[in-house]
């Protein structure tokens, strides 16, 4: 009975956000967008119910005496050889992340109602918020890799569009595109992991691939080589989503979006999605020590770099972004070292703290001015200055972006340009057009 209640609550968590998203889409397409007041009521109602449902799901799971609940929502497609299963899985890992997601989405939705009052993209913002909320909840509840991949892509799209929310300025739009590019690399990694699991097991069900023992225990049923291959694919996906080196530059760029969405996505949910992914695949790491070492190394490098670069930032949101990166890097290092519960606690605490800091960042300047006028300059503690050379390197993010530009983007652009030139030369010759 209790287990059934828990399952029904999970369906409600996703269904409510999905329906809200569809309702926003439909009203926008039919040019019948509701008033701000009605939108606010709807969104508050949806997230109040969503959070209550997720709480109920957790409580009823505890009351049932079970440690995990699985729901087979149905097959999107089922043929003789191929099944695309929608499986939800609630356990000790997904429950805290689900509660975090629904709570923060709700808080930020209420905050945004005032923050974006009379903004031209008011409805667009809530439409994307619902899409993101749906995607994030589905990510943490996913019980199969195909479900996870489905949700993973939705998060990426919603994020890119929210960063480019103020679309009349080129800056946010360019940054939105940059983030989307990194997310596509991340999606590629997850897709490769999914295809590898499919080719080994014929299914992407985590129970089959990662063992049916309760998280954080469990033994992967993969051979060592395959586990390493899948591990690296998952790591690529996690690095992209959590802005680890060399993809770190997207996080400061994401600060161009509206502050509430920045708080929830890049301070809390989206940036920790990579860490969640690594934790979900944790049974794999004991069979893939090379991947574990890489996770630790990448996390450590990200944390150190972010800490140094963060020191020379002059903008509060950028500074917070690098502080976020430092913590997420440390979380990665913890996962690489084999901790399981510590990173979960670290993620949750960090997400809540950082969200509050982001939400308060617009009023921080006023507070600093007030402090200065009351207590004088000594009220603001200054950090130790870096040496000029060190400062310059840190200011340029240790040339990471320039390096990526030089070794990846420029050759790719040159190759594509060369192909178009070859084509145009052939066309000119065959078409008999003059050289100029």
């Amino acid at each position: 009975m209790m287990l059934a209640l828990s399952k029904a609550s999970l369906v409600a968590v996703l269904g409510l956000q999905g329906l809200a998203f569809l309702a926003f889409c439909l009203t926008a397409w039919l040019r019948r967008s509701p008033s701000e007041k009605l939108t606010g009521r709807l969104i508050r109602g949806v997230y109040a119910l969503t959070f209550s449902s997720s709480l109920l799901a957790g409580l009823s799971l505890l009351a049932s005496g079970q440690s995990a609940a699985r729901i087979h929502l149905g097959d999107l497609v089922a043929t003789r050889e191929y099944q695309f299963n929608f499986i939800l899985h609630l356990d000790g890992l997904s429950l805290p992340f689900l509660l975090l997601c629904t709570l923060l989405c709700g808080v930020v939705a209420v905050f945004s109602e005032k923050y974006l009052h009379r903004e031209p993209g008011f409805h667009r913002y809530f439409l994307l918020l619902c899409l993101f909320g749906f995607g994030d909840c589905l990510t943490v509840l996913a019980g199969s890799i195909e479900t996870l991949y489905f949700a993973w892509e939705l998060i990426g799209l919603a994020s890119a569009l929210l960063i480019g929310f103020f679309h009349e300025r080129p800056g946010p739009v360019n940054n939105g595109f940059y983030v989307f590019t990194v997310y596509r690399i991340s999606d590629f990694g997850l897709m490769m992991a999914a295809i590898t699991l499919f080719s080994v097991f014929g299914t992407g069900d985590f129970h089959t691939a990662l063992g049916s023992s309760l998280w954080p225990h469990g033994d992967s049923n993969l051979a060592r080589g395959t586990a390493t291959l899948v591990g690296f694919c998952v790591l690529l996906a996690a690095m992209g989503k959590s802005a680890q080196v060399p993809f770190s530059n997207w996080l400061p760029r994401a600060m161009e979006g509206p502050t509430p969405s920045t708080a929830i996505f890049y301070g809390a949910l989206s940036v920790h999605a990579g860490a969640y992914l690594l934790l979900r695949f944790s049974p794999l790491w004991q069979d893939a020590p090379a991947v574990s070492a890489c996770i630790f190394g990448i996390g450590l490098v990200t944390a150190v770099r972010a800490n140094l670069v963060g020191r020379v930032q002059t903008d509060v949101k950028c500074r917070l972004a690098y502080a976020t990166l430092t913590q997420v890097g440390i979380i990665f290092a913890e996962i690489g070292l084999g901790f399981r519960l510590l990173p979960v606690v670290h993620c949750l605490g960090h997400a809540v703290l950082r969200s509050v800091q982001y939400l308060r960042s617009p009023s921080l300047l006023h507070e600093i001015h007030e402090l200065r006028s009351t207590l004088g300059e000594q009220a603001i503690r200054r950090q130790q200055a870096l040496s000029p050379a060190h400062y310059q390197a840190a200011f340029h993010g240790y040339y990471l972006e320039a390096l990526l530009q030089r070794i990846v983007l420029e050759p790719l652009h040159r190759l594509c340009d060369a192909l178009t030139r070859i084509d145009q030369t052939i066309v000119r010759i065959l078409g008999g057009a003059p050289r100029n």
Partner: protein
Amino acid sequence: MFASVLQTLTILMPAAASLTGWGRTRQGSVTVTALTLLFAIDLLLWGLPAGEALVTAGMLYLDELSIWLLPYAALIGCALVVYTPRKDRSPALTASLLVSLSIDLAFFSLKWAPALAFLWVCSHIPLWAALPHDRALRRILLLFLGGGCVLFLAGVATGNLALLLAGVLMRKGVIPVHQWLPELFAKAPIPHVLAFCAPQLGAYACVRLVVPSASPSMLLGLGTLGLVTSLYGACLAFAYKDVRRVFAGIFMGQTSLVFAGLQCTSEAGLAGGLTLWLSGGLALLGLGCTLWGLETRRGPQDLSRFHGGFERTPRLAAAFLLFGLAAVGFPGTVGFLSEELLLEGTIHTYPHVGILVAVTAAMNSLTVMRAYFHLFCGSARQYLPSQGLVFREDAALTALLLPLLLFGLLPQTVISSRWKAADTLLAQRAAAAKHYQVLR
């Protein structure tokens, strides 16, 4: 009997209407294409529960493969007729679209090679008649498409599969004979280009005439060419600035993935390729229509700067993004599952090069987002009044979006049907492979 009469009526009605004055009016053409679509859907609903070879009356043939292609072609024709802006509308254009529709429907209803060859040649006429007076373009098209026709006819006449396949490859714009495609997209009128390219007659000819009797090595070559072309198209789209050429690159990249599916040895890959034919075709048609609408409002566009104007055309922007994402297989659209199936099939067949499907999809999705941001975001240089969608645009885009989203959420029907078609094709291929083994 009823089905063959209905099928005949579906094929002939648009062509007959194009001969009458009423058929060339807006009201007449919309009515005729809507009826054609209705009949084609009726055939689909009638035929889905039945077994194989649903209609075999005379030359007409309808089986699991073609049963979805009739409503697909009818929807393309109907959407183009309805979407045509007032300023582009003319009796000649309407007649051309109606004739193209009839040719497409007839092509998808036949499997007799000489009849297909005749229609193959005929399908070029409406496009050729509408080409601008650009000598270079005409020369290139004559070389590639004319050459393709000659090869196809020679292949049918001699029964030589290699010639037939070469003709098909030229028509599909597969590497290394693809150069005409970006030129055509850049210089010819959009409706004619879409009516010519979106149905993908080349894929049908390939499935009907080449795949059942091709040797495994020929199929391997076909699939490899498809994969390389898809990546090449994605690279071109990535580099171009002219929106029409960008669209051509995406079109080339996504449609040639169908060939990548045809060489798969697993049902999943083959079914994925066949589904991608439908989903990619409709999504790319929708993308083309939104570009057409944008050009009608603002003139030629490029991606060298931000054009702005989202607030003036929010639904056009949304439609552009939705169609673009549907074309590259984003979740929630039918393209998502077809790409999943295709990727699984190609990696199963070729573990090392199958990955190109994922690379192509990723690159094309970046191009779609880049195009969306450049075309609709940024601040507009001049003030223009609201340019929202008018009713006919609304109707056409909604009609194209509905199947993409509906079958994205409930794809079982379409995937099962494509799976059965893939089964039949695999059986034919197995027989051909045995034949080649005996010969060896």
